[in-house]
């Protein structure tokens, strides 16, 4: 299910920015007379507007998630919009420099600190951006260090904002463009300050404590109970968890909740992928955990719609939201037929077999790909019959989700009726 609302809003905001810039020019001749300059100015403006949007997307606000139809989609968009804004920001001085050649003394003004303070703000912003980019696109850092460096984007954005407002060109001479840009700069800075400084203590935070940790095959289950208020989640949602533990580190990680809202405890199931995830095994009983959330729209599509059949397709650790949904809908939704296809690559990967017990309305199909080969749409059709009036929900590795989604679309399922969720995100 693609939600284009957010993308359309971003597109419209960009177009309005360009339109205001065109309005700021006396005639189209001026725009066409010096095309590198015109493109550079548009790049500068779009760089700021898109960076502000990117900062807004990282606030994890409910209104943002609702607009984009899920936090995974928000972060996908955050990466694209942030990346685009970076490309624009980098090419803004580049085009100006090229435009000024062969006059090297002018070209120099765009890259080196000089006597013009408005330029200097932009140049420092560029330096900070470049420093950070080294860690995003050139060198791969450990997650927690990378996350720290990523926070400096806001400083770069602030300086770029000051640069844009100080520069004595179209922005300051055309009030509508000036105030339009000021709006983005102010909101962008607010969003950044909220994300970096206030989210940790004033975001949607719930304090839990660990009551039990257990290792089952390849995963670690952590059971939590609330200290104060319980987080009210619907099955299939996830939260960000920040553990008060020196070994694990206190940066927050997103984990899907694998317990039902009915359960007295909150359970997360972490797949052991490396040394870092291994440390979760050593979390101490009674140590505190800050839970931020809930987020995610994955589980909410089957409610309130007239679907007769619901097909759940899980790949590997992608089973976790379905475990929560299974436990919750076990004794509910009797008017619907639910089919859960659980695909895993070998016996040792088959998890939660205790949780996925017998149910009247939910049929569980274990799909060991080592024995039965990859799950595909024909195999699903074999068990489900037809896919009229059916909702398809897929969670698993990205390649699997894309492949299955395409297969279902080819089999005549409307794109609207297919829901996917990525679980690898920031």
């Amino acid at each position, binding site marked *: 299910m693609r939600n284009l609302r957010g993308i359309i809003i971003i597109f419209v905001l960009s177009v309005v920015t360009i339109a205001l810039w065109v309005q700021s020019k006396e005639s189209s001749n001026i725009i066409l007379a*010096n095309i590198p300059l015109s493109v550079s100015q548009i790049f500068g403006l779009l760089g700021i507007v898109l960076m502000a949007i990117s900062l807004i997307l990282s606030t994890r606000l409910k209104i943002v998630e609702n607009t984009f139809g899920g936090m995974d989609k928000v972060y996908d968009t955050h*990466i694209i919009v942030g*990346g685009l804004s970076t490309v624009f920001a980098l*090419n803004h001085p580049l085009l*100006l420099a090229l*435009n*000024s050649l062969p006059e090297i003394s002018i070209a120099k003004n765009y890259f080196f600190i000089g006597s013009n303070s408005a330029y200097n703000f932009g140049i420092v912003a560029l330096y900070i951006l470049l420093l950070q980019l080294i860690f995003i696109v050139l060198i791969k850092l450990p997650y927690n260090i990378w996350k720290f460096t990523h926070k400096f984007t806001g400083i770069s954005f602030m300086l770029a904002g000051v640069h844009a407002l100080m520069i*004595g060109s179209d922005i300051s*001479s055309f009030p509508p463009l000036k105030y339009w840009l000021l709006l983005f700069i102010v909101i962008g800075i607010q969003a950044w300050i909220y994300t970096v400084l206030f989210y940790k203590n004033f975001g949607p935070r719930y304090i839990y404590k660990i009551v039990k940790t257990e290792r089952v095959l390849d995963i670690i289950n952590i059971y939590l109970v609330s200290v104060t208020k319980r987080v009210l989640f619907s099955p299939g949602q996830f939260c960000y968890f920040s553990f008060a533990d020196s070994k694990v580190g206190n940066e927050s990680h997103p984990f899907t909740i694998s317990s039902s809202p009915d359960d007295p405890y909150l359970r997360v199931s972490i797949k052991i992928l490396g040394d870092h995830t291994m440390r979760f095994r050593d979390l101490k009983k009674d140590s505190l955990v800050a839970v931020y959330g809930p987020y995610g729209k994955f589980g909410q599509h089957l409610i309130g719609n007239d679907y007769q059949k619901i097909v759940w397709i899980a790949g590997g650790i992608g089973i976790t939201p379905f475990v929560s949904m299974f436990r919750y809908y076990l004794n509910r939704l009797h008017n619907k037929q639910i089919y859960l296809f659980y695909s895993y690559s070998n016996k040792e990967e088959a998890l939660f077999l205790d949780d996925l017990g017998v149910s009247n309305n939910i049929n569980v199909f274990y799909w060991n790909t080592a024995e039965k080969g990859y799950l595909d749409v024909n195999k699903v059709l074999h068990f489900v019959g037809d896919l009229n009036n059916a909702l398809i929900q897929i969670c698993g590795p990205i390649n699997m989700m894309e492949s299955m989604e395409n297969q279902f679309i080819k089999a005549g399922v409307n794109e609207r009726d297919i829901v996917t969720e990525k679980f690898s995100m920031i």
Partner: protein
Amino acid sequence: MWPLIKSAIRISILNILFISLAVFLVPQVKNYIKQQKNSVTSSTESPKLSVDNNVNDTVSVETETQDTPIDAQTSISDETDKKEVVADEPVDLQNTEPDFFAELPAHNNKSSCWISYNGHVYDITTYFGKHPGGDAALAMYCGADATVAFNTKDKNPPSPHSSSAQQLLQKYLIQ
């Protein structure tokens, strides 16, 4: 889409590094070549002087900005030299050298913009799009005297232009 953006970012970073390096190095290399030429000519005259020139070389590479004022000044003096030569022949002056001051008011727009400053005329048409203070500030003075504006940036208190801006202006001198 992210891989595409990622490579665009990489290319942009490389371009920025390349251009800023080029912009930084080209004037230095030019200066170095100039110094080399000078030292070659002077070394033929007296070997003692060439030692001094080498010292100048190292200094000038380090403080490259200090060199440019000399260049600008020489170009100015070149101009004044030419004028003096012309002034020696008063008959030619009236026939061949056009009076740019008389023409100044005609060049009052962006497509052909002349200004006067401190008794000289400058054609700043090609400077549009490069002015840190915006084109509007330039356009106001097309075809007029911009001495006060240049010296104060039309601000109260006055905010004079930097010495590098002064040098830059000299490149647009026509009279």
